[in-house]
């Protein structure tokens, strides 16, 4: 099987697992929606303020709960499943790419739902070139998915894995958060978004290179 064939198979397998467990849609998304609702309640009746923090809150929620979406491997993954994939001779880089693609797809869907909820609950300021938000969102989702997959491989088999995740992913995801939030802010102010888009693209490229190059050593370290 070719590299991309393996990637396709791993992606389908990951999405199938998610369809069976339903973790993203039945647990994480309602919880994130509840978080979106608690912030205006805590702020009180200050509609201009709520409207102005709409997009920043959206990106914070996308990062914090998106981490959970991309980190769902932890609850699904078993050593036996991993060993089977290794014994089947799947390229570790293909495994990394497939899992990152599956997480990216789920994250993109999750962010569409959260974006719609943000618009309904916060009525954020209108974005002049809103289609760019889709590009920003896709770059953010791809970066976060790769980072969480990398962190998942890095902590494979460790007892404290679930508590270690936020500590590893959150600081390294800050360039993604800053890039996405600043690009959205530039859209609001009708100024150039190119530097921020480049930052997101660069972060994605770096993560892809590191993820693919370290896939084999990390697999060897965990077995």
């Amino acid at each position: 099987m070719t590299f991309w064939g393996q990637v396709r198979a791993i992606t389908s397998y990951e999405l199938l697992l998610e369809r069976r467990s339903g973790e993203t849609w039945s647990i994480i998304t309602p919880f994130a929606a509840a978080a979106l609702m608690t912030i205006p309640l805590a702020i009180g009746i200050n509609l201009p303020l709520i409207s102005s923090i709409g997009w920043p809150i959206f990106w914070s929620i996308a990062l914090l709960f998106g981490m959970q979406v991309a980190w769902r491997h932890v609850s699904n993954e078993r050593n036996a499943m991993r060993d089977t994939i290794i014994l089947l001779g799947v390229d570790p880089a293909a495994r990394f790419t497939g899992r990152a693609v599956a997480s990216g797809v789920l994250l993109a869907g999750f962010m569409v739902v959260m974006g719609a909820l943000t618009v309904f609950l916060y009525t954020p300021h209108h974005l002049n070139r809103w289609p760019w938000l889709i590009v920003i969102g896709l770059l953010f989702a791809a970066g976060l998915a790769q980072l969480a997959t990398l962190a998942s491989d890095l902590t494979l088999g460790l007892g404290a894995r679930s508590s270690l995740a936020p500590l590893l992913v959150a600081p390294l995801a800050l360039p993604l958060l800053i890039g996405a939030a600043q690009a959205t802010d530039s859209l609001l102010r009708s100024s150039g978004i190119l530097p921020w888009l480049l930052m997101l693209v660069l972060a994605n490229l770096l993560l892809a290179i590191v993820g693919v190059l370290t896939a084999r050593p990390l697999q060897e370290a965990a077995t």
Partner: protein
Amino acid sequence: MTQSAQMRVKLLMALAGLVSALGIWLAYSTPPDALQRTYARIINIHAPAMWVAFLAFGVTALGSIVWRFTRNRRWDHLAGASAEIGVLFTVIGLVTGMIWGKPVWGVYFDWADPRMASTAVLLLVYVGYLALRRATIDPEQRASRSSILGIVAVIQVPLVYFSVNLMRSLHQTQSIRPGGSTMHPTMLRALLFNLGAFTLVYVALMSARMVVARLEEARAAREVSAAGSAVIPPTLGGPSLGGIGDG
């Protein structure tokens, strides 16, 4: 550990303590700045602490790279020890920066300042590195996993250093450049002396931590052998258990 090695570490620690005490006195005795007044003295602690933190994280990356080639545990110890000390110096750098920032900038922490924000992220990433080391019990796995993070994380060091050049904000750019310094010679002397003193403190702490790492490894090896020796493989010729093993 031999007596001479213990003595060497003690002497190094004493010397580092003495030199750094002298450095702090020198920092305190520098003349006040025209604008920042006596607050400028904090820079003599803040800047050397951050320089040494960068050095420490560089050594972590170097130790990680060499471990990947040699698989010698000593390099992994070096990487881990250096990260611990790097985190300590980053905390010192951040805290002194915040103490200086309040009277001079009006805030303890300015989120719009790329140097401060990126330093905070750098600290969190290396805290994560140390957490990963602590969470991995098997030494080989620990070395393998943390070496990858140690190599990847060091990318942030140049980002933090050059952040003031890439994005203009409250933070000043480098005062010491290849072409010369913008500082008064008295202030520069104190700053450079402290840089040397803090580097010596780093070396002393590293040598002590390396000794501790060797002792930890020896203890772990003893514990493994003790657990292993409790399980004795069955042998022929022992007391009869009703026919079992008699054949």
